[in-house]
């Protein structure tokens, strides 16, 4: 989907900057999810579909969350200009780690060994998908 230059040698400092940028991306992305969840928590479950959509469009934490999500997407595109997708994608999977930690800390969600194992297996799957086929 994204255009990256895999043929030319990428300078090491540029590559490091790309990894750092993607790392920031995962932090912003996780913060966005927390904002979206706290916005969703304030929506009444008894509202009709039309009322809920109106409530979504006027919900400040939700809108802030999706804006932050937009910012993290732009950062990702910037990072991908100088970095290889296969190198950066496993870093992106860090978002799952942050979201899990924040869900427990902020929303007091329960955690057990099975849930952690499930998230770990998903992270490995997403990382492999991003890394692509060995050349």
């Amino acid at each position, binding site marked *: 989907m994204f255009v990256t230059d895999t043929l030319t040698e990428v300078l090491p400092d540029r590559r490091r900057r790309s990894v750092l940028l993607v790392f920031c991306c995962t932090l912003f992305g996780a913060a966005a999810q*927390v904002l979206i*969840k706290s916005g969703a928590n304030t*929506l009444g479950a008894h509202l009709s579909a039309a009322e809920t*959509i109106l409530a979504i469009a006027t919900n400040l934490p939700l809108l802030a969350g999706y804006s932050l999500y937009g910012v993290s997407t732009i950062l990702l595109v910037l990072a991908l200009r100088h970095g290889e997708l296969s190198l950066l994608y496993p870093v992106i999977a860090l978002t799952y780690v942050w979201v899990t930690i924040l869900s427990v800390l902020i*929303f007091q969600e329960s955690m057990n060994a099975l849930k952690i194992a499930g998230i770990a297996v*998903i992270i490995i799957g997403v990382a492999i998908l991003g890394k692509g086929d060995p050349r």
Partner: protein
Amino acid sequence: MAWVATGSFIGSFGAVGLKAGAKRLGRNLKSVYTNWRLAAGVGAYLVSAVFFVFGLRRGELSILYPMVSLGYIWTLFWSRLFFGEPLTRTKFLALGLILSGIAILGLGNQ
């Protein structure tokens, strides 16, 4: 969970719309905003976001956020179907891992 699963399905058409639209882009800005495929892709993403929020009203973030990765699986099939991209052994491995991860997550949620 059903909200997020349905949302990930709709959202995967977002990627299809963006890809189909991107292939038809010219060098001018007008070709971006008059491109109905791109608009349909963005629309699909918006609808899937609404479904995600519907799911999050009651569901746990630590369960529902990883479930969004179901979308990667749909996207692999649409890429094969609509754009003829090869489904390699590595992609199958990743697909199997993501599906098993979601199944294990579901078991842990009970």
